[in-house]
């Protein structure tokens, strides 16, 4: 009896062991989607994941995929938790994924060393490790269209353009995790070279909804401007607290993850005047997004809870993530002549990205964003941003594209990249022409 049980058990193990959770079809390509539709960051994760999936599904529905090959989007829930993210990665990397977009700096950092080994590129669009902008040191990681450092420099440029930054005190409130801490080295550096003072206010992941201490400290420090590197439930809470202490909202700038409809809808009229950086267009008035509405949303193939959610800041951001990936797939297909490509082909495709305004218009996204042009050495593209302002019910774009201070940021990025690599003897950089 016992032996029979054991035989059964071993048979079970064998069955489990040989079982692959995903059967890849010949005529499709696997595109994992790390999402978080649960937990305190779901407010941001949900629209992003919707935009991401809807764009690929739109290509499948409208064009029958990319050059005839369908894209199979497979979601894995990470809850914005690095460990779960790695679990997702480990569980799905056997399915020949083209690229991972973790939507979490913590997960990105964990995947960077794995990418070259498994030959799957990591595309951390506007998040993750800033130093990964250096393609020579990070052949497998991409941060199009801009790194955090570039973004911060653009934001500081904006502040400087308003009433001069020299001699001012800048408050930096950030999520106390890999993500929020990422731009601090540049901030410290620039505070010296540009001559402003910095006051930092970390917000613990568990304290996101209870920020009154941080804002009491803001009141104590009396900064002239506030910059926020926030995410999830942290953002609306921070804006409400700022209102409470009478901090002028038109001197409060969120980064591009701290300025979405999900954040500001919760604040509503009170949040009027709040500023945020952005790099992806707002609204539904783009042909590509109209196609998403007709081919996906109206057919009930989308997970969005209402049609109005299409076109909000984070939905469009997720969509833009998919646009870049799809474009990289096309580049890779053209370069290799294959229709079904591998992760390594995808890497080459990502380096060959050339999203000019003309190409964006062709894709149905005119004036959606700045041009994104990659190369072997440049994995962040051009990286301009614009500033948007909350008018009480919606965001309005209020500036032209602001280019980063490439001359200052680029050398620092390269230095940071070299530091990252320095203690990793087996690290493999690439040589660019």
């Amino acid at each position, binding site marked *: 009896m016992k032996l029979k049980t054991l035989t059964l058990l071993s048979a079970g193990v064998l069955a489990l062991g040989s079982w692959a959770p995903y059967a890849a079809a010949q005529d499709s390509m696997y595109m994992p989607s790390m999402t978080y*539709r*649960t*937990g*305190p960051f*779901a*407010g941001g994760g*949900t629209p992003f994941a919707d935009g991401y999936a809807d764009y690929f599904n739109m290509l499948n529905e409208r064009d029958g995929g990319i050059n005839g090959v369908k894209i199979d989007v497979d979601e894995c829930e990470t809850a914005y938790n690095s460990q779960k993210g790695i679990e997702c990665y480990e569980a799905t990397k056997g399915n020949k994924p083209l690229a991972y977009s973790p939507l979490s700096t913590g997960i990105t950092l964990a995947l960077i060393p794995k990418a070259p080994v498994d030959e799957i590129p990591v595309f951390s669009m506007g998040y993750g490790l800033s130093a990964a902008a250096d393609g020579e040191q990070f052949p497998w990681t991409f941060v199009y269209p801009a790194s955090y450092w570039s973004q911060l420099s653009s934001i500081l440029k904006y502040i400087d353009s308003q009433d001069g930054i020299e001699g001012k005190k800048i408050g930096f409130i950030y999520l*106390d995790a890999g993500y929020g801490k990422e731009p601090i080295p540049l901030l410290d550096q620039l505070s010296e070279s540009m001559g402003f003072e910095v006051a930092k*206010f*970390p917000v*613990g992941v*568990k*304290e*996101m*909804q*209870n920020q*009154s*201490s941080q804002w*009491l*400290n803001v*009141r*104590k420090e009396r900064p002239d401007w506030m910059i926020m590197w926030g995410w*999830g*439930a942290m953002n*609306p*809470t921070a804006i*409400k607290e700022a209102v*409470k*202490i*009478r901090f002028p909202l038109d001197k409060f700038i969120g980064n591009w993850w701290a300025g979405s409809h*999900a954040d500001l*809808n*919760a*604040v*509503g009229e009170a949040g009027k005047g709040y500023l945020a950086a952005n790099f992806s267009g707002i609204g539904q008035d783009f042909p590509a997004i109209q196609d998403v509405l007709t081919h996906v949303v109206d057919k009930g193939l989308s997970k969005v*809870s209402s049609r109005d959610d299409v076109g909000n800041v984070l939905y469009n951001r997720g969509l833009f993530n998919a646009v870049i990936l799809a474009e990289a797939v096309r580049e890779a297909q053209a370069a290799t002549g294959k229709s079904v490509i591998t992760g390594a082909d995808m890497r080459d495709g990502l380096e060959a990205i050339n999203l000019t305004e003309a190409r964006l218009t062709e894709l149905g996204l005119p004036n959606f964003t700045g041009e994104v042009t990659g190369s072997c050495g440049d994995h962040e593209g051009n990286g301009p941003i614009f500033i948007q302002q909350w008018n009480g019910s919606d965001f309005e774009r209020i500036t032209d594209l602001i280019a980063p201070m490439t001359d200052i940021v680029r050398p620092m990025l390269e230095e940071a990249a070299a530091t990252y690599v320095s203690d990793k003897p087996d690290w493999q950089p690439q040589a660019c022409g």
Partner: protein
Amino acid sequence: MDVLLSVFVEPFQEMLAFPDFFLQVIWEGFVAGVLYSLIALGFVLIYKASGVFNFAQGIMVVFAALVLVSLHEMGVPAWLAVVLSLGVMALLAVGIERMVLRKLVNQHDAILLMATIGLTLILKGVGQLFFGGEPKPMITEQLGLPTGSTDLEVFGGLVILQHIDVAATVIALLMVIALAVFFSKTRIGRALRAVADDHQAALSVGISLNQIWAIVWFASGIVALVTGIMWGARSEVSFALEIIALKALAVLILGGFTSIPGAIVGGLIIGIGEKMFEVYWGALLGSGVEAWFAYVLALIFLLFRPQGLFGERIIERV
């Protein structure tokens, strides 16, 4: 020497130099403390009557608020949504009593605690499954709660009082009074106290333990809903609240598991204490000390007075 100065002298100098700011800190701590007290209160109600250390109290707060907000999203008018949410909490109370408590009578208290941890998981899963995991704004205005703020000019400076915070304090006070009246003046309330004192005795005078349990769980469900509304109005309704709610456990250590005044005083001590510690001393340690202040304070407190501020001294018998 510098360290000593910055620990023992400078914070106090700062308090004196900016008394208006100091008052603001106290007020913020006080309001946070009121909300901790409310969570702890729901907890004490259950512990007193059924001896269950209800770990799920925090998630009940989130759950109640989420039901309310989601109902309103579906187009139910605010007042009806409140009534329906109370109905849901009542169903929950009866359900918990039937399916969990009744089956675990006379079990070891650690087992009961773990059962409520299981309950936490269920409520979290159900809440997210039906209402989604993303944070939602509280329907403050629809419920007729005040918004806006008043400036008090004191010591040549400003203390800003949010109306919602004042309202939270008043409502918390009213609720405590209502509970006190309920316990001392009504038949069910007296029965509840009898149960708390002696289960056997209560049974012998014909009080149904099962009913009592369902009633206290419902009562703490009401407390949870009120807490959820208040907390939601201050930030928003989200599952992130669950972790903050754990601080109520530290409050209970200070106040004692069975004492309602203890829950209130304990909540205020922790609320005010952590704010002051964070604002005046936090920078010395690199800030973020709020995350553990409550627990470490409770731990130190435990070493000197394990029975809590208002608890009775425990004498062990063999």
